[in-house]
């Protein structure tokens, strides 16, 4: 908030915003004895106003008040009570800007006079600031140093008296000042009304925003008020280490900055060095250069012997080796190990003045050796790609590299480096530590427009060499066989009908023992099937006259039934294996190289214990989430929701395998390597695409390898570049298929089996009854009345009710396999390569 708002928010007792525009009621004070002062204002004083100049320009003539020696500003006497403030806790705030010419003995703020009463803030000729409450001529209540405040710069002052413990606190520029206290005068304080409150009597400086508060403000208030007026409490200057790299060289940059503290500055300059390679230097016919070699932060160039050799290569640590004469003293090769090593290429003019530099290597010493005969230390350094990744958190590595990963494809216990390699293997990219020591992941694909074009003027003769990949090293077809085994929970329902095919009249005619409902119910609930519905009965009629000729039926047979129907269900678990074959084919490459197959096998088993499912008897419907399959006639639910090894994990593994296979194919196809020696260029990195344009060979590809040997003692610069060229040599008609996982297959069709089980009656003891059979199901009963068989000499059956529920057929119960195959076409990039005689 603006200062006026901050002050207002603290509910001031009186607040003179001063020099409000546009109009009175004026809040200006009057000078007591002097004429109006240039920069001050003369006018009648009034009660405290609500007006304020929004800006804070304490040096301006329209925003504040200046009181010269012999002058002071009378503030309003109304609201009353200003002089009485000191009887309780109170605070005084104002901004001031003092002339540089020392302190007078003068009052900043004064509400009282005489020897014993009131309160004031004033300066001493000794340079101290004094805050008196209960003013008297004995030593002041609080006294602090004003050293440095008469610096012609704006400052804030907050002076607080806390009546609860008679303590005084002084805050200068928002921070509590150290001060000496003497509370002897406190007890004598009283309001003194003879003179209105004054500002700046004899002070000779500028004032602004005086405010009085009828409470003891806090340190936080002091900081807030100061910050609103003059910026945050000073914390000194901070520096920010920066490294910027660009393609342009500039001498210096300016950075608009705001310094927090006691003064504002418009802008500061920040010395920066922008590194770039200057084409006019490295393409010149004659150029002077040098190296800067820092070992453990110490420049060793003066002791360097022989050339410095630097090598960067895709997917490898960068290396650097050199020899130097160490400083005199004891030698311990181990002391050099693990030291940082930086090598920069310096572009000099012909006078040896540095024009620019490019860092070509950043690493650490891996091994050091000492030749005592010659006094030479030899070091070899590495960018330690493996070491930097080994112990990194996997989440960090995943962010750095991207790609895909599955525990079903890769080793879950691998270290960070292997984890990084695994993720990288699903990308058509390489990783390395660049010349600035930064981790980089760079796509293999050559850019449409090369970063660097080299003709014969930019390379040395007899250095061009093309090494083509061997056919047997290519992969044109990648086959991933992935078996996904899981448990399929099945639920079959069957309707059972015990049919009363003879009818009630036949019963009346022939008589047999009716079947009790209890018996039927007991039979229905006594099988491996679970009855999931109530039994629907074919009831025995109530008492009455029925049939033709009519017969009288006495009824009272509710406990019995002529027929019944219900639904039963059975649950079991079936092991299913989806055998997926994912085939990636680079058809263009296969046209020329033939089929070069790489096959890998993987298996995932979704963990699930089906015991509880199969033993469950207490259910009344199909399982939640199951779906009816017309192929099998059953409800089915695949137990594949486990996070680690369920279907989602399996599909992620598929996606990973597809990406990995594609990367394998493309990676092999780019093993063609073009090597040559260009005129040394310090701007080339592994991220660049280079096009070589010579009379007999034109090629464009991504830089795969850089070996640079720089000898500042002969001036010789050697650079060998290896450029990867991806080629298929085919018709170029292939189109990338989306690498989507294979869709979930339907359950295989099974031979239909009946979902209706009907059973009837077998009546014995009739003249036509066939022989009893153990194979019968249904109600087996003998015809007779009251225990007297109708034809005792005929076939008399063993009376029984047999419910022979069907078994689940083997095809539905045994482990099943489903084969799927999906082919994906993959495009191999064809980098530019033309050769002619």
């Amino acid at each position, binding site marked *: 908030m603006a200062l006026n708002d901050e002050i207002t928010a603290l509910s001031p007792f009186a607040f003179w915003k001063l020099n409000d525009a546009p109009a009175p009621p004026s809040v200006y004070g009057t000078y007591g004895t002097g004429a109006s002062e240039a920069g001050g204002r003369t006018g009648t004083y009034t009660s405290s106003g609500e007006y304020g100049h929004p800006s804070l320009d304490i040096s301006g003539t329209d925003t504040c008040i200046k009181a010269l020696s012999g002058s002071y500003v009378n503030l309003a006497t109304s609201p009353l009570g200003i002089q009485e403030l000191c009887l309780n806790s109170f605070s005084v705030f104002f901004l001031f800007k003092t002339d540089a010419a020392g302190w007078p003995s003068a009052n900043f703020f004064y509400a009282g006079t005489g020897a014993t009463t009131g309160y004031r803030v004033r300066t001493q000729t000794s340079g101290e600031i004094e805050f008196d409450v209960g003013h008297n001529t004995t030593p002041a209540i609080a006294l602090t140093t004003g050293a440095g405040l008469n610096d012609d710069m704006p400052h804030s002052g907050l002076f607080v008296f806390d009546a609860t413990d008679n303590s005084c606190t002084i805050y200068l520029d928002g921070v509590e000042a150290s001060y000496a206290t003497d509370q002897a005068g406190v007890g004598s304080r009283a309001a003194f009304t003879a003179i209105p409150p004054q500002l700046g009597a004899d002070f000779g400086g500028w004032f602004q925003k005086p405010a009085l508060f009828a409470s003891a403000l806090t340190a936080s208030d002091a900081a807030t008020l100061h910050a609103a007026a003059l910026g945050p409490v000073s914390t000194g200057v901070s520096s920010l280490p920066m490294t910027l790299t660009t393609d342009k060289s500039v001498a210096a940059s300016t950075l608009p900055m705001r310094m927090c503290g006691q003064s504002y500055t418009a802008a500061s300059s920040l010395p920066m060095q922008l590194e770039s390679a200057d084409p006019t230097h490295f393409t010149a*016919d*004659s150029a002077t250069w040098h190296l800067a070699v820092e070992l453990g932060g110490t420049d060793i160039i003066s002791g360097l012997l022989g050339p410095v050799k630097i090598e960067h290569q895709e997917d490898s640590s960068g290396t650097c080796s050199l020899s130097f004469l160490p400083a005199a003293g004891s030698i311990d090769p181990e002391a050099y190990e693990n030291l940082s090593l930086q090598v920069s290429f310096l572009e000099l003019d012909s*006078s040896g003045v540095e024009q620019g530099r490019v860092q070509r290597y950043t690493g650490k010493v891996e091994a050091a050796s000492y030749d005592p005969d010659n006094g030479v230390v030899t070091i070899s350094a590495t960018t330690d790609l493996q070491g930097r990744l080994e112990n990194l958190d996997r989440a960090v590595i995943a962010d750095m590299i991207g790609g895909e990963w599955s525990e079903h494809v890769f080793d879950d216990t691998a270290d960070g480096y292997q984890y990084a390699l695994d993720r990288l293997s699903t990308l058509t990219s390489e990783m390395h530590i660049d010349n600035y020591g930064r981790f980089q992941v760079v796509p293999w694909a050559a850019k449409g427009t090369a970063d660097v074009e080299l003709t014969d003027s930019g390379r*040395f003769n007899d250095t061009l060499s093309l090494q083509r990949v061997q056919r047997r090293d290519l992969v044109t077809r990648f086959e991933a066989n992935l078996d996904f085994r899981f448990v399929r929970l099945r639920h079959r329902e069957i309707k059972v009908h015990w049919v009363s095919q003879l009818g009630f009249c036949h019963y009346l005619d022939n008589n047999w023992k009716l079947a009790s409902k209890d018996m039927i119910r007991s039979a229905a609930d006594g099988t491996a099937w679970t009855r999931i519905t109530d039994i629907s009965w074919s009831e025995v009629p109530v008492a009455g006259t029925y049939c033709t000729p009519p017969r009288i039926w006495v009824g009272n047979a509710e406990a019995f039934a002529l027929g019944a129907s219900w639904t039963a269900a059975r649950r079991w678990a079936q092991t299913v294996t989806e055998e997926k074959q994912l085939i990636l084919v680079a058809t263009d490459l296969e046209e020329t190289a033939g089929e070069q197959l790489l096959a890998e096998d993987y298996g995932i088993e979704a963990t699930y214990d089906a015991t509880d499912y199969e033993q469950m008897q207490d259910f009344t419907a199909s399982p939640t989430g199951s779906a009816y399959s017309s192929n099998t006639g059953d409800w089915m639910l695949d137990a594949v929701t486990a996070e680690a090894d369920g279907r989602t994990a399996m599909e992620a593994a598929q996606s990973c395998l597809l990406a990995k296979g594609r990367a394998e194919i493309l990676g092999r196809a780019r093993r063609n390597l073009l090597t040559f020696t260009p005129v040394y260029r310090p701007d080339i990195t592994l991220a660049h695409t280079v096009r070589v344009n010579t009379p007999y060979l034109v090629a464009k590809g991504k830089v795969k390898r850089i070996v640079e040997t720089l000898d500042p003692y002969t001036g010789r610069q050697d650079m060998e570049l290896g450029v990867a060229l991806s080629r298929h040599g085919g018709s170029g008609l292939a189109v990338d298929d989306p690498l989507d996982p294979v869709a979930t297959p339907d359950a295989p069709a099974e031979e239909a089996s009946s979902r209706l089980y009907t059973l009837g009656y077998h009546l014995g003891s009739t003249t036509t009854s066939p022989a009893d059979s153990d194979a019968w199901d249904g109600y087996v009963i003998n015809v007779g009345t009251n225990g007297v068989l109708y034809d005792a000499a005929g076939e008399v059956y063993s009376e029984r009710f047999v419910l022979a529920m069907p078994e689940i057929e083997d095809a539905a119960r045994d482990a099943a396999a489903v084969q799927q195959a999906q082919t994906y076409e993959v495009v191999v990039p064809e980098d530019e390569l033309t050769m002619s005689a």
Partner: protein
Amino acid sequence: MTAQFLTLEIGALVIPDSAMGRLRVDYEDLEARTDRRVADGTFNSRVGWAGARKLLATIAGDSWAPPGLDDLDIDSSYTVKLPKQRSKSSASNIITIPAARRSGGLYDPVGFAVVDGGLVETTVDDVTGDVYTLGTVAGASGYRVEYFPQITAKVRPQPSTLDSERRSHGWQILVQEV
């Protein structure tokens, strides 16, 4: 009037006239330069040593007295005042010459104008630091300043000889600017 000979001074040691005799001085500018040609035949030169050039002077004398250099410390660096001039030419009469030069008497730089293929000595009108302003000469196609180098160098004696038939001592030193 005493004949004045050009002297060779190695630190405080002045090689006497009697040892100079028939003196031969060869100058070679050493630099870390590799010259090659690129594939289209363009000349390609790369210079190390931060562009620095160092002077190698091979000095041989043949006279009736040996030069007295046996006590020379080959590990120390000496201020060597060389007896052979170098020259710097320019189309302009204002020429800047190296600061590492001898001065005084015979060894003060001398200015010449090239007139009709010949050298005509001219005045040195102004010397500001290393910048020499020569007096202009009518018809001059160019100007040059000749000076005697004075370098800080390591001095390494080479094998010396005695030719008893000619009664002469042959000696040689390599003066390598540090």
